[in-house]
C-alpha cells in the first residue's frame, strides 16, 4: 500500500475557503513532477475537494476539479479518504470523483506510520 520513500500529502481544507488546498496540491504536483511517489489523504473539510459536481471557481478563482482530474497525469493514483470524515460530513461516496479509496478510521494512524515523509495542509 505504501512505499517507504513515498510522500504523504494530507489535505484538510475545502475549496474556496483559503489557499491551503491549492498550495497543498501544488506541493503534491511538484513532488510528483520530480519523480517522487505521492499519496494523498483527504480528511475533514478536505473531502469537499473531491465532489464531482464542483463547478468552475467562484468569480475570479480557478476551480479545483480540473486539478483533481489532472492528478493521474502526474501518476498520483493513491487518493484516500477517511471513512469517518465522509460519514461526519454525510457525503456518500458516489458524490465523489472516481478512483477514491475509503480508509476505515482504525487504519488512518497506520497510513501516517507507513510514510517517512508527510506534508500536512
Amino acid at each position: 500500500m505504501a512505499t517507504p520513500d513515498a510522500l504523504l500529502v494530507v489535505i484538510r481544507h475545502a475549496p474556496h475557503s483559503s489557499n491551503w488546498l491549492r498550495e497543498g496540491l501544488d506541493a503534491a504536483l511538484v513532488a510528483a513532477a520530480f519523480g517522487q511517489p505521492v499519496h494523498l489523504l483527504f480528511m475533514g473539510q478536505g473531502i469537499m475537494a473531491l465532489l464531482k459536481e464542483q463547478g468552475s471557481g467562484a468569480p475570479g478563482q480557478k476551480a479545483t476539479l480540473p486539478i483533481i482530474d489532472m492528478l493521474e497525469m502526474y501518476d498520483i493514483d493513491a487518493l484516500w479518504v477517511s471513512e469517518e470524515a465522509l460519514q461526519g460530513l454525510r457525503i456518500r461516496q458516489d458524490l465523489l470523483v472516481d478512483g477514491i479509496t475509503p480508509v476505515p478510521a482504525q487504519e488512518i494512524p497506520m497510513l501516517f506510520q507507513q510514510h517517512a515523509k508527510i506534508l500536512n495542509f
Partner: protein
Amino acid sequence: MHHGLHYGLLVMGAPYSSPAPHSALRFAHAIIARGHKIAGVFFYHDGVHNGASLMAPPQDELNLHEAWRELNQQHAIPLDICIAAALRRGLMSESEAQRHGQPAFNVAPPFELTGLGQLLDLQQRADRFITFA
C-alpha cells in the same frame, strides 16, 4: 546520542496574524542552543510574508523580518521563500521585479525566492522536519 541533528523548518503562518513565526523563531534558537544545526527554513503559504523587507512594526515589538535576518547572519541558515506563493501575494525580489516590470521590490537577501523543489529537498536532507503554521 542525539547531538548534531539537522533540522528543517517549514513556516506557513504570516507575521503578526499567526503565532507560527514567533514559535518557529524561538524553536530555532532552542535547536541551536542544544547543539543542533538548522539546514534551512522554507516559507510557504502566508509564511512568505516573513520575507517582506518593508515590515515596520512599532519599535518596542519584535521585527520578525529582522529576527530572521539575524538568525541567518549568526548561523548562516538559508531562508528560502516559495516563489509562486510570494508572487501571488505581492512579494518580489529585485530580479523578479525586473521580469514583471514592477518599479520596486520587497524581498532581498538573505531571503531567496525559490521553487517548491527546495522544500522537498530540505525535507529529504533534514533529520527532523517541523512545520509551524
